[in-house]
């Protein structure tokens, strides 16, 4: 009975997590630029990989019984996945903007390119008409 329960739980968590990773890989075909691809990749690391960690913890629980160390490592792994993937996505998107990767032309209000309405955009660093 216990073995059947463990198999069911590992199956539910593992297959759901794997399917989320696969779906975010498929979603990369639907969007057109690098920023959107970084965006649709975050379900894989934010929800898919933690579910796989939960599956691994349930398997360890069934295999060797309850242990505080393994519970601590599992919780720490989930936290590390979330924080690390967030910081990594920030770094990657920032460098992708800085290196001039093309942005999809239907990005409707693009505030990196155009200021909001009612703002006179003046360059404060623009040199006055002195010449050098």
């Amino acid at each position: 009975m216990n073995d059947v329960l463990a198999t069911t739980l590992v199956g539910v968590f593992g297959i759901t997590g794997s399917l989320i990773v696969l779906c975010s890989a498929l979603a990369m075909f639907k969007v057109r630029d690098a920023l959107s691809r970084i965006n649709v990749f975050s379900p894989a690391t934010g929800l898919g990989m933690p579910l796989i960690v939960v599956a691994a913890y349930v398997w360890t629980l069934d295999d060797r019984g309850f242990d505080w160390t393994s519970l601590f490592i599992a919780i720490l792994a989930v936290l590390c996945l979330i924080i690390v993937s967030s910081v990594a996505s920030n770094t990657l998107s920032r460098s992708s903007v800085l290196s001039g990767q093309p942005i999809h032309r239907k990005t409707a209000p693009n505030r990196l390119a155009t200021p909001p309405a009612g703002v006179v955009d003046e360059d404060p660093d623009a040199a006055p008409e002195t010449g050098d």
Partner: protein
Amino acid sequence: MMRILHGISYVCYITWAIITGSVTVITRLFRVGKPYAQPMIVEVPLRCATDLEVTLFASSITITPGTLVTAIAAGTSTTPPVLFVHALFEDSEESALEGLYDMESRLLAMTRGRGPAGSARTAASVENSVQQENAAAAENAEENAAENTSAGYPVTEHPTTREDQS
């Protein structure tokens, strides 16, 4: 004590946002006939002040599926820090900003123990106020320069240099 309660509710809120955002990303795959996403980059002037708050807010935005921080402009003494957020599944710019400010209010309630008092300023009002302050500062500088030259003092553009401190 209130900060711990606010922190617990913020963690629950982020978890719920991750789950619903992932469901959105996946269910939009199987909608045929409609466009998959509407990408946009919005500008968010922050009410967060310290580095910890800005970092936490940027990480929370990025871990939520559907929103992504692309650039951070550092704040000065007059302007708040500004985030440029890439949003995929929002209908308009206003709804995107509304969701982001909701998350920011919860974050500030966690770090400060209570919610922020005033409502958020829009990007256009921030820009306009900054331009008015710059214009006023420029007028003052011109008046001072005129007084100095009439009194015979030499006008120095940069009175303090920081080279000797480095």
